[in-house]
């Protein structure tokens, strides 16, 4: 019998499940990958086999051509769908179960069981309600491998209704201008739009071209987003008094010159810190995040109550300190290439 948990091995570019010869969210192409969700710091193309939820696979097909035939008609990368709650048996007697993570459409935590030991890897997650994806579920385990993007006690995300109210007020106060919202193209953008609809905003919303396909994909998966229009199809005057959603990189780009006097907003957990907002020239910061804030991170660890906490990425020092203060065993994995600057 080998040492406890020696079957799961963290490397800088991913977590390896040794007996199954398989990786979780690897940063380079491998033969067999379990992918938690579609963001580029977790998913990538080129794996021999990709196990993920059907929604994540759809996103990966769009972004990385996973499971899509090439010119010769071959499918070089195999996509294997795993439903929420479904358990698959991997080689080496490892069972993997996909559980909603509440992060973005299709996002999953993965529960791994082997030799009576249970490990949960969260990928990215949040605990707040989100009309665009299934809610996070607490799963008891021995080792809890968590993210810590917002792992500092200064990060507490306010209720999203407050942030939506700020956005709709800015719009109402400036009927001759427009409000340009910077939002991550996968997840954040659709959540902001869905929350706007939930808040009763039924006017057309304008999109940067880079957003269009992902929004359509969300709608195909049962997330209605209302009337969406492309900025490129309209003149300045059409867009006065409207909300425009674009990726954060477009906020101060030349592209924004075609908009009618835009007020620059950004939907991101980083907006909690004034300096971060000012750095990006944001006039209307919206603290909206798809990651767990400090309270959610610590509350989740308490609820899961594992023997050990491993921290994959983010501000791990503070979370480790918190574990130390609560006499929890914890370690940092310091995975590379995992930073959601535009979160």
């Amino acid at each position, binding site marked *: 019998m080998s040492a406890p948990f020696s079957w799961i091995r963290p490397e800088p570019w991913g977590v390896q499940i040794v007996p199954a010869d398989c990786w979780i969210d690897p940063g380079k192409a491998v033969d067999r990958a379990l992918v938690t969700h579609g963001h580029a710091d977790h998913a990538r193309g080129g794996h021999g086999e990709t196990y993920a939820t059907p929604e994540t696979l759809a996103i990966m097909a769009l972004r990385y051509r996973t499971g899509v035939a090439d010119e010769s008609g071959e499918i070089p990368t195999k996509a294997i769908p795993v439903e929420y709650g479904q358990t698959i048996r991997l080689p080496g007697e490892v069972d993997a179960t996909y559980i909603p993570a509440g992060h973005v459409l299709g996002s999953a935590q993965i529960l791994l069981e082997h030799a009576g030991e249970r490990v949960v890897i969260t990928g990215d997650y949040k605990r707040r309600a989100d009309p665009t994806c299934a809610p996070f579920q607490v799963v008891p385990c021995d080792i809890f491998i968590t993210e810590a993007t917002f792992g*500092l*006690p*200064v990060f*507490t995300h306010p209720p999203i209704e407050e942030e939506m109210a700020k956005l709709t007020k800015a719009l109402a106060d400036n009927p001759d201008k427009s409000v340009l919202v910077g939002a991550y193209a996968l997840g954040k953008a659709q959540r902001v739009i869905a929350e706007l609809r939930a808040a009763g905003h039924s006017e057309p919303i304008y999109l940067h071209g880079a957003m269009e396909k992902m929004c359509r994909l969300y709608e195909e998966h049962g997330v209605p987003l209302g009337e969406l229009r492309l900025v490129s199809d309209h003149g300045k005057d059409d867009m006065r008094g409207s909300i425009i959603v674009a990726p954060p990189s477009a906020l*101060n*780009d*030349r592209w*924004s*010159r075609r908009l009618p006097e835009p007020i620059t907003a950004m939907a991101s957990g980083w907006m*909690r*810190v*004034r*300096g971060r*907002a*000012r750095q990006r*020239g*944001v*006039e*209307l*910061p919206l603290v909206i995040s798809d990651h767990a804030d400090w309270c959610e991170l610590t509350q989740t660890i308490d609820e899961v109550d594992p023997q050990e906490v491993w921290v994959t990425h983010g*501000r791990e*020092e*503070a979370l480790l*300190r*918190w574990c130390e*203060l609560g006499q929890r065993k914890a370690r940092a994995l310091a995975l590379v290439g995992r930073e959601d600057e535009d979160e």
Partner: protein
Amino acid sequence: MEEFAALLDTLVYTTSRNRKLAMIAEYLRETPDPDRGWALAALTGELDFPAVKSSTIRNLMKDRVDPVLWTLSRDFVGDTAETASLLWPEPEARDGEVPSVAQVVDQLSALNRNTAPKELPKVLDRLDANGRFALIKLATGGMRIGISARLAKTAFAQAFDVSVEEVEEYWHALEAPYPELFAWGADGGDPPDVSNRPRFRPFMLAHPLEDTEVDLGEYAAEWKWDGIRVQLVRVAGETRLYSRSGDDISATFPELLDVLPMDAVLDGELLVRGASQGGEEGGAASFNALQQRLGRKTVSKKILKEAPAFVRLYDALLIEGDDIREQPWSKRRAALEALMAKLPDSHFDISAVVEADDFKHLAEIREGAREDAIEGLMLKRRDSPYIAGRKVGLWYKWKHDPLLIDAVLMYAQRGSGKRSSFYSDYTFGCWDGDPDGGAELLPVGKAYSGFTDAELKKLDRLVRQTTLNRFGPVREVERTLVFEVAFDSVHTSKRHKSGLAMRFPRIHRIRWDKPVHEADRIESLRALIRD
């Protein structure tokens, strides 16, 4: 306090001056007395609560947050007040009403070092994170949100549709929360009676002398010195020093506060002692030396001894209770000259009138004065009264033609506000040797004005097309473009790699035609140094 916190928050994120003005004006219109007066004082940095320091806040946090988590948070956020406002433990229930700005000011003023650690938490417990941020900023001073006194006065004038000159006249004579100012501005009452209090009178300003010539029979010429324009005011024995914008800078120059032997209002140039302006005897140091003294709130003995300040007088507005602003310049000048005998020459001298036979002769004198690092000449109509602002035909400034060099565009940075999508701030360099013999370009300055919108578009395109490297908001570009850069003077500087710093550099012309190896060498710039 909620409205004030919201105002502060929006001001933090707003880059447009007009939008800032509109927001402050709206706040002033809609907020009752005395809150708006206190808020105004807080925004312009005029409140001081000695019992609350940044260390007071840090100590409070030590008892509430693990020190390691505090340090990690503080390092990430970068601002103690903000970190504390975010980490302050939310009370179970917020009891009591949210205090008004006035209540907060009352509570803070009543604190001393012993009571602060006990009383401050009670106030913090009644506020949300934005409110706590506003409270800590207000209590510890130093808002640092880019609201100058001038901007605040302009906002006041805009809010109540009164003239900004009048606001300036009263402002500094009154004390926070300025009830008399609001009674006049907002409620249409009588102007405040400020006759017995030191106050700032708006300066008389000059127009540039374009291509006109003036008759020296009608106009007198004076040197224009390269310091900062100040107004020294003594009323009822109390002396204040005001900068050109009307900011009270008395605390920065304490040596000038007990040397004026009579009540008066005098207009002059603030300089520090040194040899380079006006010769060895009683001379003044360069603007560089003066700059070391600006912006300090407390002044060490060492600095007072090394760079003592004095005022080179131009004009007198009031002398011993007599308001002589209506009198012609020639009479005021005579009164000023007569006054000089009573002023200590350690701290005062008079800007000499420049005698010339005719305009042409004056032009020659002006040309020859470049050596003395004088900014140029002032031409004042002999019969002109002292009138606030810039009135055509009364005073002219006849500055030296700017110095010019050809420099090469090296880096570009995004602008702010309206220009945030354009690369509009340009760093340019000169050759450190023979460009055909392998010399390198050394950055010598930065300019962001002097071009048209059409030129800006063209420059922006060039920057994007010739980018070599990106460093955050900065792009390094291929060396292809020459700017003809105009500047007022150049000085030695330890802070710059090139060893020199230019004053007021701006793009004079874009030399699309000029090959970069024909740009100037750094030696030619060095030869222009006047320290």
